């Protein structure tokens, strides 16, 4: 029975499909059976077996070869050649198998040849692809330039005697001592964590989280601290760089609330060395500026002119120090602090115009007219931030070449519109967590990893990024130096089809430029306001036009920053109003756009915007085609003037 089954299955295995379908299991392709039944001696049988088995041909081909060789040895046997001699005459069986395999395959159909080459080609491509994926996965960026050192260069060069930080540091220490142990409310809010003294004080300041109760008393009791802050603000440089080298000293950490003061601070735990992730203790200068500003406000309340002037001067010093590092964030902090001083000056001019004497006003005018750092200073810093990220996200393959690394894909892949599943698969591998735990997850990750080269190729190359960065920086440089009335061409308005690092990371040059013009306009407005006050004191009346102020009180009369022409000027309710004609270029008699008017906006069911949206003058095309909710084309947003003095001035169509 067993033999019968073996025989059947053996025949079944060696039956062509066509015969099997017809139910005829004849075992036609069983060349071994034929060989066994051929009546050959052992040596030729072994030889044939070796040749046919080693040829690794299709079964049909093996049968053909076996039959021919069987016939060959049978002929030799019939010719009286001994089996040993016949095998010797035949030659090397291995070589025969190899040559037969080659020759038989050469005779196969064209379709088979096409398939064979296609599969081999695909295999080679697959191997190359996997090798490339591995190279990308293992390729690590090379950090060759210390951009943090570049940014901190001016701080490191300045003499220690010019540094304000040691004095601020001592003042912060005293603030901590003055605050005493945490109150119950502070403890609850801190939730067991250490809270830096400046944060605790900030929360007590009026207008912040606290009601301001007790702050006046604190101010009275701690005049020495405020004097110390004034002393620090008078120093030409802060003397504190970004990054851990200087900021992460244990004392600085404790005072600024960086890390846990109960544990030794390891900079590597907190910072990967990149400029983008560096800590900027300069942010804390905003709170210090607020402290000094509140003291200045108190001085105005008490009509203490010299203390108020000293406060304004100190705030300017703090603003300059905050804006020292050429980084966009520092520009914003510097601007925010400077606005505190401007508010104080404006308050005095509006509420207590007689508080400052002429000399003090002139002194303040000189202080305010002192040029501040231009946006180009910060553009340079942003260039450093960009190239620092580039060297940390891209592999380096020679001069300027390289691909987005696995780390780069994991960090910026989403923003760069790369394949999400690839980004998510790479992320855990790069950050040491979330390893796939189950087989399905492993296969998903493996597939996603295989797509990595595609993702890396769809991202811009390092060279592309460098070229784009150079172009954008030049464009931004030009835009920041072009007056608004010449319609700057903003690089940030141009969108690339393939988002790159640059587009993602660099600040908008339009935003930078327009913010810069707003800041400058505010500064110029203050200078005009001081000149107007000095004119009023001398003539007991406001001037008939702004031209009367120059050159007696203003060496040069500022122009309309949007249109390049003269600024608008009116005296309304016995108060001077100075304004730009706005982007529509029409003199609306100091009327603000309707959308800036709370009442009008409410009646129209829209949200009022409180800041005039500055920009280049409207083009002829923009005037021709108004469009709702477009701040340039919607007349409710653009039909009006930009009031630069007094601040917070509102004059609507009703007035």
């Amino acid at each position, binding site marked *: 029975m067993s033999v019968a089954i073996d025989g059947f299955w053996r025949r079944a295995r060696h039956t062509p499909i066509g015969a099997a379908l017809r139910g005829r299991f004849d075992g036609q392709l069983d060349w071994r059976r034929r060989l066994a039944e051929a009546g050959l001696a052992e040596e030729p049988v072994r030889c044939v077996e070796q040749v046919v088995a080693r040829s690794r041909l299709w079964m049909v081909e093996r049968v053909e070869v076996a039959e021919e060789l069987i016939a060959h040895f049978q002929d030799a046997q019939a010719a009286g050649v001994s089996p040993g001699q016949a095998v010797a005459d*035949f030659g090397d069986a291995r070589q*025969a198998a190899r*040559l037969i395999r080659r020759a038989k395959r050469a005779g196969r159909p064209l379709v088979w040849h096409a398939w064979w080459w296609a599969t081999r080609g695909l295999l080679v491509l697959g191997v190359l692809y996997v090798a490339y994926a591995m190279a990308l996965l293992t390729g690590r960026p090379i950090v060759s330039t210390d951009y943090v050192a570049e940014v901190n260069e001016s701080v490191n060069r300045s003499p220690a005697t010019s540094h304000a930080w040691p004095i601020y540091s001592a003042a912060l220490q005293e603030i901590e001592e003055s605050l005493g142990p945490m109150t119950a409310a502070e403890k609850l809010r801190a939730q067991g964590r250490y809270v830096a003294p400046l944060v605790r004080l900030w929360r007590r300041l009026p207008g912040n989280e606290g009601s301001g109760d007790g702050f006046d008393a604190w101010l009275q009791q701690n005049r020495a601290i405020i004097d110390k802050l004034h002393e620090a603000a008078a120093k030409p440089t802060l003397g504190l760089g970004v990054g851990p080298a200087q900021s992460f000293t244990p004392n600085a950490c404790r005072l600024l609330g960086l890390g846990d003061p109960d544990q030794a601070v390891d900079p590597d735990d907190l910072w990967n060395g990149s400029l983008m992730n560096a800590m900027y203790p300069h942010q804390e200068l905003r709170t210090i500026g607020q402290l000094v500003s509140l003291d200045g406000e108190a001085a105005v309340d008490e009509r203490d002119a010299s203390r108020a002037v000293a406060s304004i001067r100190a705030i300017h010093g703090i603003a300059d120090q905050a804006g020292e590092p050429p980084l966009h964030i520092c520009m914003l902090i510097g601007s925010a602090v400077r606005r505190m001083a401007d508010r104080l000056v404006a308050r005095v001019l509006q509420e207590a115009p007689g508080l400052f004497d002429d000399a003090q006003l002139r002194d303040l005018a000189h202080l305010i007219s002192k040029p501040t750092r231009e946006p180009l200073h910060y553009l340079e810093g942003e260039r450093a931030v960009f190239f620092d990220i580039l060297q940390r996200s891209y592999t380096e393959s020679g001069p300027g070449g390289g691909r987005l690394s696995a780390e780069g894909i994991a960090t910026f892949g989403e923003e760069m519109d790369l394949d999400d599943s690839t980004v998510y698969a790479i992320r855990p591998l790069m950050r040491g967590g979330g390893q796939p735990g189950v087989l399905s997850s492993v296969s998903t990750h493996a597939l996603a990893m295989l797509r990595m080269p595609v993702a890396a190729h769809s991202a811009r190359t390092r060279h592309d990024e460098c070229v784009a960065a150079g172009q954008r920086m030049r464009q931004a440089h030009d835009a920041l130096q072009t007056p608004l009335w010449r319609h700057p061409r903003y690089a940030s308005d141009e969108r690339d089809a393939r988002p790159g690092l640059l587009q993602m990371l660099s600040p908008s040059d339009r935003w930078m430029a327009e913010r810069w013009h707003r800041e400058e306009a505010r500064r110029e407005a203050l200078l005009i306001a001081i000149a107007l006050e000095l004119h009023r004191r001398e003539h007991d009346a406001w001037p008939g036009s702004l031209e009367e102020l120059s050159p007696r009180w203003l060496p040069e009369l500022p122009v309309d920053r949007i249109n390049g022409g003269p600024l608008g000027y009116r005296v309304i309710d016995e108060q001077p109003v100075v304004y730009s004609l706005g982007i529509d270029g029409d003199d609306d008699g100091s009327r603000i756009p309707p959308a800036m008017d709370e009442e009008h906006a409410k009646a129209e069911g829209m949200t009022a915007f409180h800041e005039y949206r500055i920009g280049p003058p409207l083009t002829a095309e923009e005037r021709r085609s108004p469009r709702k909710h477009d701040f340039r084309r919607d007349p409710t947003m653009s039909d009006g003037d930009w009031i630069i003095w007094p601040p917070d001035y509102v004059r609507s169509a009703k007035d």
Partner: protein
Amino acid sequence: MPKLDRELMRGAGPTAVLQLLAAGEKYGYELVEALTRQSDGVLAMGQSTLYPMLYNLEAKGLVKSRVDKTGARPRRYYRLTGKGEKKLVADRKQWSALFGALQSLSVLPDAPFGKPAGGAS
């Protein structure tokens, strides 16, 4: 007689097989015997080379095979195709030119090949 160098055999072998098949179809062992006998053993090739050569000639379309099962044992017969005949004619000319040239250079003694047209006097 000395056996031919492998490279020479590689060039001469297929022509010899085509020439033998020009006389009529033959099976493998018959070809082996004919090669040995008619070339006085010079073109006797290992049979491990002959069969792959036949498969190669078949793959190139120079010979065609058929299985004859009428005899005592099934045999695969090879015969020349039209393409094979043309190849043989071309090979003959080439070999003739080669031998003529070798004679002209006195590498070979005068033999029934004659001198190549335009060859050295």
